[in-house]
């Protein structure tokens, strides 16, 4: 009996091996590509982060030293905290900026115009990212658009220095860069709200404000959560903006990772910094999803 059962099992697994699902065959090339060129390199980075580097020579002895340095040395702590802080500020600013816009798109634009408006909002995004960030430097600079205009108008005698090369400039520039990405998911969530729910809320006695906080906002939460994640995760690792408009006090962790890999020739420390940042961001993202889970359940 047992033997027959075993034989049957082997036969079945053989048959499965001979004829795999056509879907599996089709997805193999893109999956293997991602596995070899994304998953494997990340494993490589993990391994590297436990090694050490002596000038150009990699020492393959297991060590926690890189993580110790990354988490305890003042300079890295400052950069990591600043990156998180800037990303949080950018996220809050972007979502607050984007929500009314998405609300306007969803509730105040006639259906046939919505596509055009969506396109209108995404156009600025198609300016070269580098050039776009650089233009903020031009707008905020010492001889820039804001200072130039204010001086010409006689409102100020001397150009303002505090508007460029600081964290505020970084936050503003990044908020601008991410605005369309935050509008879209919130808009989609608002569009999905059954309009009769809003009418029911008024019918049951809610005023506009109470309706917004009791019905509209909770139902739009999946969009808000998506917007938060879309903005927050990549912002922590942004390189260009702090470099161009951040000044010495606006630099973030990505700039330090680049320094470790290029000028400082300390790849293992760079790897440990990158992974630490990723772990921190990942944990925060998961905590956020957990905290908002009651809004994310789909009605079924």
């Amino acid at each position, binding site marked *: 009996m047992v033997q027959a059962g075993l034989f049957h099992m082997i036969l079945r697994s053989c048959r499965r091996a001979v004829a795999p699902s056509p879907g599996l065959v089709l997805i193999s090339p*893109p999956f293997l590509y991602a*596995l070899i060129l994304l*998953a494997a390199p990340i494993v490589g980075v993990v391994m590297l982060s436990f090694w050490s580097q002596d000038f150009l020579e990699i020492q393959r002895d297991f060590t926690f030293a890189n993580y110790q340095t990354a988490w305890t040395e003042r300079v890295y702590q400052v950069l990591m905290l600043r990156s998180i802080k800037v990303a949080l500020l950018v996220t809050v600013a972007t979502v607050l900026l984007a929500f009314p816009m998405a609300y*306007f798109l969803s509730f105040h634009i006639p259906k046939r115009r919505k596509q055009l408006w969506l396109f209108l909002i995404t156009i600025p995004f198609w300016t070269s990212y580098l050039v776009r960030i650089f233009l903020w430097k031009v707008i905020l*600079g010492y001889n820039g658009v804001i200072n130039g205009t204010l001086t010409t108008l006689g409102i100020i005698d001397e150009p303002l220095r505090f508007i460029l090369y600081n964290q505020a400039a970084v936050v503003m520039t990044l908020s601008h860069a991410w605005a369309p990405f935050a509008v879209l998911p919130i808009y989609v969530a608002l569009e999905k709200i059954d309009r009769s729910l809003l009418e029911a809320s008024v019918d049951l006695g809610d005023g506009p404000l109470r309706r917004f906080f009791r019905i509209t906002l909770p139902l739009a939460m999946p969009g808000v959560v998506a917007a938060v994640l879309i903005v927050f995760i990549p912002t922590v690792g942004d390189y260009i903006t702090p470099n161009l408009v951040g000044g010495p006090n606006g630099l973030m962790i990505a700039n330090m990772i680049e320094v470790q890999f290029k000028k400082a020739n300390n790849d293992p420390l760079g790897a440990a910094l990158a992974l630490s940042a990723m772990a921190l*961001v990942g944990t925060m993202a998961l905590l956020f999803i957990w905290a908002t889970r009651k809004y994310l359940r789909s009605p079924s």
Partner: protein
Amino acid sequence: MSIRSSALLSLYVGFFLIFLYAPTLLLPLFAFNDSTIVAFPLSGFTTAWFAGLLDVPALHEATINSLAVALTSAVLATCLGILAARATTRYRFRLMHGMLGLIMLPMVLPEMIIAVAFLVVILHLGFSLSLFSIILGHVLLCTPFSVAILRTAFQGLDHNYEDASTDLGYSRWATFRLIIVPMVLPGVVASLLISFTISLDEFIIAFFLSGTETTLPVYIWGQLRFPQRVPNVLALGTLLLAISLGLMITAEFFRRRGLRKLGLSTQESVL
């Protein structure tokens, strides 16, 4: 909503759009401004900055590199995208969501991580950096976008169409050629154009992985250090914006035509 709060909201939308468009509108303005200092007031109209782009060999080289990288990446990413989209819309199999998740991961990963991971592997395996390494990275980055676009295209492809074609006498291959390809073609074109645009604009991966040959964004990055070169950069940025916009409008046109053909709504956008 009361008239007053409605007016307030409209006012806000006005400010939001100004904020959103400020850099984009200033770009062509200063690109045609006859002054090396980028500030108001404007001093006069000139096309000199555009003309100045013509005699920079390094720029031409970077442009050709960028076009080659973007074209190759777009084609490869779209091929991978077609396979993943077809596999996940037509079939169900074990670990499908996990596999799709890994393929889509680069969409949410900071580019810095991808760049660093690539750098580590390429250098430690003893390969040298080249345009090829940039292409590998860009394909990884573009594939999720391609998959997202093509999945909508393939989802519109009810498998009854394939059954009907077989039932009417065609083989699988003929069905693929006569039914599937024409129906998803607009999606394929949209995927090619969007991947091309993303690759053309990508900086971090190109910056980390470029050896002696650079792409356009890396070239621009180098130029930003020289104040006297800034107007040229702005002229170049204006050109790139025009090209990107052209490609995007074409992509959106094809995508919508495809959806209309399939009798689907065109309400949802690419992004």
